[in-house]
């Protein structure tokens, strides 16, 4: 295992492949971030299908697999597809996804017709062209890697140079427009960057799978950070790593395409992110919603105790409680135990009673509820029988600041619309 790993970093051919793919991965991560934020990732998919005829045209034109000619051809048809999609959406009643699907298949079909013409020609150079379909990083030449490197540096330089306007167009195009940024030009720039990235990546990833390298790293990065710079860095890192790991995986058998393995690794990264990312991941969301539910349950219990005390009862058994407020008895007991632990509730034999701390909390919730009801009737002209439901929800959300505002707005009222006292 160790031998294999060192082989990848010492053998000149393997090193070249790894270098090429990791450059592509990193630059795709950067450019893909912008497509992702503008919700244009499916256009990236269309572009990666549409660069295929361009590569064939470039080959027909040059007669060899000269990376620069192929790239120029690829960029030309790729950009033309972006323009066509935009034109169809703007000037006809067809929807965007239809336009994307039809443009990408049409272009791809043209490409494969050209490929079948090329493969009948006697040109011996044509053998490698098919590797553009599924991507074969092993066919990368030193010139290819050099071209990738130069182009990637250019792309990153452009991103840094135009960072502010690009950022504005991604997050708030209307605002960008209002301060005089030429949105059309920035969007054009972004589509050129996307098309160029796809054009260099297609040889390693293949037509069908190139879009994954633009989408998945950016989508994963979004779950780890809220900052654009952070997102660009993380996305580039994901692209970079999946490129390397994908190439290593693809050597398990001879004649393996690299594209699918890179996508497979990318998907693993994405899955791990979606499930385990802090704050936005699945598990974290589950935990938060559980915590929220528990908070609401406990607040409802406190409120019910408060209502009992308004009627003159302080010590309540579980049975009595359930008569007043329907609740799952297991949930109730579990929450009561938790509240005893927190010092809001105390227990004597079968009776439960609020502590001083608990009373304060309960009063706060009832206050929020009743203030909100009063606000709805006084300021929003709601009928008295329509207000309880929304107050039931909002009482759990009202912060001390909002409460202060409400109190000021309503001039420290004494009773609510149902003539019950508002506790202070």
């Amino acid at each position, binding site marked *: 295992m160790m031998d294999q790993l060192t082989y990848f970093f010492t053998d000149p051919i393997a090193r070249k492949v790894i270098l090429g793919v990791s450059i592509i991965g990193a630059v795709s991560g950067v450019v893909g971030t912008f497509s992702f934020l503008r919700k244009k990732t499916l256009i990236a998919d269309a572009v990666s299908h549409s660069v295929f005829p361009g590569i064939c045209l470039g080959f027909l034109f040059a007669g060899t697999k000269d990376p620069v000619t192929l790239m120029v051809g690829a960029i030309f048809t790729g950009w033309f597809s972006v323009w066509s999609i935009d034109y169809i959406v703007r000037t006809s009643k067809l929807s965007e996804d*239809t336009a994307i699907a039809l443009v990408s298949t049409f272009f*791809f079909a043209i*490409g494969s017709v050209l490929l*079948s*013409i090329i493969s009948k020609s006697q040109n011996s150079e044509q053998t490698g062209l098919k590797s553009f379909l599924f991507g074969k990083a092993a066919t990368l030449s030193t010139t290819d890697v050099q071209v990738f490197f130069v182009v990637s540096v250019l792309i990153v330089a452009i991103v840094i140079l135009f960072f502010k306007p690009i950022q504005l167009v991604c997050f708030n195009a209307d605002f960008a427009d209002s301060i005089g940024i030429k949105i059309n030009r920035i969007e054009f720039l972004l589509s050129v960057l996307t098309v160029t990235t796809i054009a260099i990546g297609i040889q390693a990833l293949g037509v069908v799978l190139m879009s994954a390298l633009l989408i998945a790293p950016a989508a994963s990065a979004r779950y780890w950070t809220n900052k654009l710079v952070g997102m660009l860095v993380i996305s580039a890192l994901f692209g970079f790593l999946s490129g390397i790991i994908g190439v290593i995986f693809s050597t398990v*058998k001879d004649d393996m395409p690299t594209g*699918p393995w890179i996508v497979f690794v990318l998907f693993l990264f*994405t899955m791990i992110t979606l499930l385990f990312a802090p704050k936005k991941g699945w598990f974290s969301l589950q935990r938060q919603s559980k915590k929220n539910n528990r908070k609401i349950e406990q607040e409802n219990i406190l409120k019910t105790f408060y209502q009992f005390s308004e009627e003159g009862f302080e010590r309540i058994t579980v049975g009595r409680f359930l008569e007043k407020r329907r609740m799952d008895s297991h949930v109730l007991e579990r929450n009561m135990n938790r509240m005893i632990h927190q010092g809001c509730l105390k227990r004597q034999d079968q009776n439960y009673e609020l502590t001083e701390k608990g009373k304060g909390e309960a009063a706060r919730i009832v206050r929020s509820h009743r203030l909100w009801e009063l606000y709805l009737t006084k300021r929003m002209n709601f009928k008295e029988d329509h207000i309880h439901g929304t107050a039931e929800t909002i009482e759990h959300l009202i912060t001390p600041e909002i409460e202060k505002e409400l109190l000021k707005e309503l001039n420290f009222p004494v009773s609510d619309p149902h003539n019950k006292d508002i506790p202070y």
Partner: protein
Amino acid sequence: MVGDAISHSVLPGIVIAYLFSSQFDSIFIMIGAGIFGVFTTVIIDFFHKKLKLQEDASIGITFTWLFAVGVILIALFTGSATDLDQECVLFGELGTSFLDKIIIGGRLYGTRSMLMILPVFLVIVLFVFSGFKGLQLLAFHEEYALSKGINTRIWQLGFMSLVSITTVMSFESVGAILVVGLLVLPPATAYLLVGKLTKMLWFSCVIATFDCLLGYLFSIYFDVSVSSMIIVFAGIIFVLVFLGLKAQKKWKNNFSEQSVFE
């Protein structure tokens, strides 16, 4: 767009089923592909609704991943399954499918792929005719259908299964990518021409048939890939209709402008 995604993501289903049954025309392939078709919509939904990933990214990630798995499986098992190769997945092999004749008792009954597609065709026609109202509601106004108490999930599922089956049947002949072209280009052309659903269905069928015939003839003439030529033709016809309608509109506008000035 989900149709596009499905046509790519049924691939692992086909490969796995093929590895188990080692023949193409088995019911397993259909089942495998059907399962993966439904699986795709489920994952996309899960990513989008449960994990809060934006929709375009959910679609993009799901189908590229499943397609990648399919290609990996093919590459891993090419030794044992020589019929399956990567290019055939992309382009199909319509050119050779007529070699596979079904001859029973000395009589030629048709080619294998034709006999396979025929029942599917009948099932789909039956489904469309019998479920026309439901499909119509689903296509135009899903929420209204829901409010009328129609189980849109069932219709959605049925429709998606049909898309998967159609895709699988077309797989062998036109391949994974180009089947999307056949699913999208003729209806889009028809949609530009007419506004009514029934008319659109007929137009779409006629246009698609026309595309296939012309594409096939031209591909023989120029000796290029059949399936690609069909889509190229479908694309050309779309472009012609699109530009034709544009020109017509422009001409009309000029005409009416003139009459205003006169």
